[in-house]
């Protein structure tokens, strides 16, 4: 690991100043991803600004029934929060399906958003990777790409975003509150993470010097009936091949409201807007669910080893919606 300077941010203002005025500085939360990447010399910050002492560690209920989750709240605290468990079960579920108990105790909400891909070519200095070394090329495209993206990939990068929690947040229409040298602003969740295009090293909409202060979740009453399903190679503690987060409201046999997002399939948590469009007002049955899945996955492209994910994603969508619609 390369040597770095360490400082605790005393308050939010100090954190913004330290981040924007210190060359090559990075924020440190739980460290579960960053420390590992630094040990592998993938990340080489000259300075770390520790934000875990900032007053961003609370979950607050909003008057409209929504929630604001502070950036440094640990993943376990979100999954265990009574309001999350009751009103947003898909979010609690997505979190407990991710990582291990120890990592969930350490990892922060903002760190979960900021985590890097687990593409093995990104981790391997002997491999070419446009994300690690822009312009170098991508060895995953012609390599072993079973875990890689089927939607929104580019000729530069086929990596996936590894988060479970973010898939639920995408389905919930969350917003990301940030603050920076230019002041505070709010980013729609869908706009926060980027597709790779020809700059896969640029992963989020965060501008230099900006940091996440919290996540806003709208009331979304029908999310009480929601589900997160993760398909993976082993029963626990593994990244998703495909995951589906969904909330569904059925009225007289018709879909009244639906939210759907996919994980493990793209460079960002994938909000399934095409499937949602097909489902709006449709019969809440297997046939419509399959049509919606087909529509969403129509632009999907398989590579040598991940073609199976396309049908897997469709079946998982149908299965999850079927479970939410039944009973």
């Amino acid at each position, binding site marked *: *690991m390369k*040597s*770095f*300077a*360490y*400082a605790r*941010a*005393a308050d939010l*203002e*100090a*954190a913004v*100043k*330290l981040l924007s*005025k*210190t060359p090559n*500085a990075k924020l*440190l939360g739980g*460290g*579960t991803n960053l*420390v*590992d990447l*630094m*040990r592998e010399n993938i990340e080489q910050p*000259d*300075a*770390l*600004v*520790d934000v*875990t002492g900032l007053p961003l560690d609370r979950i607050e209920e909003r008057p409209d029934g929504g929630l604001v989750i502070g950036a440094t709240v640990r993943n*376990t605290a979100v*999954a*265990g929060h009574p309001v999350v*468990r*009751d009103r947003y*079960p898909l979010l*609690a*579920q997505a979190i*407990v*399906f991710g*990582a*291990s*108990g*120890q*990592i969930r*105790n*350490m990892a922060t909400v903002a760190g979960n958003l900021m985590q890097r891909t687990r593409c093995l070519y990104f981790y391997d200095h002997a491999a070419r990777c446009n994300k690690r070394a822009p312009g170098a090329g991508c060895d995953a495209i012609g390599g072993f790409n079973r875990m890689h993206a089927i939607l929104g990939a580019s000729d530069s990068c086929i990596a996936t975003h590894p988060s479970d929690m973010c898939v639920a947040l995408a389905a919930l229409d969350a917003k990301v509150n940030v603050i920076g040298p230019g002041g505070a602003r709010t980013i729609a969740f869908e706009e926060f993470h980027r597709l790779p295009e020809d700059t896969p090293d640029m992963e989020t909409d965060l501008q230099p010097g900006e940091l996440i202060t919290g996540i806003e979740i709208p009331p979304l009453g029908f999310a009480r009936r929601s589900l997160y399903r*993760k398909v993976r190679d082993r*029963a*626990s*503690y593994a990244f998703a091949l495909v995951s589906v987060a969904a909330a569904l409201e059925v009225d007289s046999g018709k879909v009244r409201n639906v939210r759907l997002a996919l994980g493990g399939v793209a460079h960002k948590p994938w909000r399934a807007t095409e499937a949602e469009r097909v489902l709006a007002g449709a019969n809440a049955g297997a046939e419509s669910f399959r049509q919606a899945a087909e529509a969403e996955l129509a632009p999907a492209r398989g590579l040598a080893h991940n073609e199976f994910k396309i049908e897997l994603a469709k079946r998982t969508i149908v299965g999850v919606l079927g479970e939410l619609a039944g009973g």
Partner: protein
Amino acid sequence: MPSPDRTPKAAPIPPAGSALILLKINGVDHSLSIDPRTSLLDVLREHLSLTGPKKGCNQGACGACTVLVDGQRVLSCLSLAVQLEGREITTIEGIASGELHRLQVAFIEHDGFQCGYCTPGQICSAIGMFQEFQNGLPSAVTGDMAAARIEFSDAEIKERMSGNLCRCGAYVGICEAIHSAFDREVAK
């Protein structure tokens, strides 16, 4: 000619080098001068000779380095020690008080280990896991996230302990030991 006063309120970050920190480990204060790169695991093992926590993978995959920080289980290999000033750190060496902890006794009675390498992490993890369970935290096998009561079943224990690997495959004994130590305490 000095520029107008645009001094940031925050002092610049001191250069890389060493940091002086105070860590409370197993009830004892330790004042240490460390490189900020040092993981909690390396502080414990290399600076303080607390070799109970093991360096298995050193990348957060195996759980052998699990310790408790303020009662919560964490991976000491991915924790930077400089972040833990003022927190209560408990390693396997601090679990027993005079006599063995009942979970340690149960591990012996139920053959919860073979080579023993993962055992300190398994025991610290299980203690933290049981507290999470008692707090009502759901898991990936709980089903209803809002459930008021969760059964302390084999399936729940296995899922909640999946961050601790055992290459000898002593999982059956580990699961029995956890039941044996904690079943009677499960919140009714």
